[in-house]
């Protein structure tokens, strides 16, 4: 039985003659989290953009396909793909502080995400907003607040609510906790796992930090300069990394109780 909600096959993209995504392969399954790990410039964000067919105009897709529920996104009409973005596949981009409109209240921004895709009545939208705020553990009063009145963690929850508004099948999160304190990061990651358990969507989680991978991932893809250098379950990649690059990325994170004088670089 094929329960892959997203299949990326042999994806190869160039910009200015340089391969920025090189034969990338991975699948997403409902209820599972795949972490795409790599340093800045490894191609992970571009890969996420490819899934949404939002690659920059200057890029050239040399080969490969991305199937969302069996249909290749690159073959879809503009209108069809636009319906999928935000509804079937939702994405939370990096930079949470600039993702929210500073002159709109949180509730209105979440409503916008719903209204764009569903023809709900005003009452139904309001009800859904309340439901979503509850899902991300924010009080109903948050609806009337402006982004600057919310802490970083609260803003990230609002953005999450917007992404979940239309009950997507795939949620892409690009470094969602990078700008947050470690304690808030833990709360957000726990929240994401809990919501996923209740709603069974697939998650593509992009990060540069293996300790975050350890907290959240089921499967892992390690990317370096556009290629997937290692792939496997979290236990395999973290516990028995085969590639030197993977081992290096894992070991450069300082650890509690670590008495090393220098970090490996």
């Amino acid at each position: 039985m094929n329960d892959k909600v997203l299949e990326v096959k042999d994806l190869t993209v160039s910009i200015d003659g340089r391969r920025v995504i090189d034969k990338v392969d991975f699948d997403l399954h409902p209820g599972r989290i795949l972490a795409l790990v790599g340093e800045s410039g490894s191609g992970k964000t571009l890969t996420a953009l490819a899934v949404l067919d939002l690659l920059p105009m200057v890029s050239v897709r040399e080969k490969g396909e991305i199937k969302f529920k069996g249909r290749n996104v690159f073959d879809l009409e503009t209108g069809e793909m636009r319906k999928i973005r935000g509804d079937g596949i939702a994405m939370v981009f990096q930079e949470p502080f600039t993702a929210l409109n500073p002159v709109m209240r949180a509730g209105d921004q979440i409503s916008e995400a719903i209204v764009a895709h569903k023809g709900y009545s005003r009452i139904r939208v309001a009800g859904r907003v309340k439901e979503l705020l509850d899902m991300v553990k924010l009080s109903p009063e948050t609806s009337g607040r402006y982004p600057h009145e919310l802490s970083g963690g609260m803003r990230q929850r609002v953005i999450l609510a917007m992404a979940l508004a239309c009950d997507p099948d795939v949620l892409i999160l690009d470094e969602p906790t990078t700008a947050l304190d470690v304690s808030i990061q833990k709360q957000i990651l726990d929240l994401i796992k809990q919501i996923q358990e209740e709603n069974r969507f697939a998650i593509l989680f992009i990060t540069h930090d293996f300790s975050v991978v350890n907290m959240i991932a089921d499967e892992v893809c390690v990317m370096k300069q556009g290629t997937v250098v290692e792939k496997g379950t979290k236990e395999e990649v973290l516990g028995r990394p085969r590639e030197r690059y993977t081992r290096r990325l894992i070991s450069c994170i300082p650890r509690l109780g670590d008495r090393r004088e220098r970090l490996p670089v």
Partner: protein
Amino acid sequence: MEPMVEVIDLKKYFRERKGLFRHEKEPIKAVDGVSFTVEKGRTFGLVGESGCGKSTIAKLIVGILSPDSGRKIIRADRDIVFQDPFSSLNPRMTAKEIIGESLLVRGVRKKEIESRVRETLRLVRLDGPPCADKYPHQFSGGERQRIAIARALVRRPGILVLDEPVSSLDVSIQAGILNLLKDLQGELGLTYVFISHDLRVVEFMSDFVGVMKEGRLVEIASREEIYSAPKAEYTKHLLESIPKI
């Protein structure tokens, strides 16, 4: 020998005026009676969540802000490195100009500025020939942070305050900057006040650690004590949220 940095019951309140009748609201007690000392050549790590007042302490130590009460005794020149290397570097100045600016405004001769900037770039391992004349956007995040460190070091201060210096960098780049900071401390005998929300990084860098919450220090101890035998509930809470690997 006397400590390089002595902070005694420092307080800094911020007042807001709001409302129709301009009633003064309860002031925000950003720093509410903080005391600590730092010995020469040591690192004092200040850890706490966003909003606890640690950045305010950084600004108080280097003199960007003045305390409302309490005292500070600083026994050497001090300088500061901020979190976001991109916004703290003037995009219209070259690396050379950014680093040399503090010398220029003090009337140092051009030739001497050049040699001191070159020397400082070498210290932060950015001594490839084209580096000095490049603009911030032409560097990577880690390199920009090295420029920010060079700028802070060019006048050879004895004390460096580092406010979340690696938080916006990839972990692999963080490692390089942390190693560099340790090397520089050894080479130049620097005293550090190292501020971060990340306990792992603070543990790696510090000799002593202060845990801040809502403007106060809830615990202050040596690195070993904080991590192996934390006393305050809040410290334990912070330790528990650290991602394990």
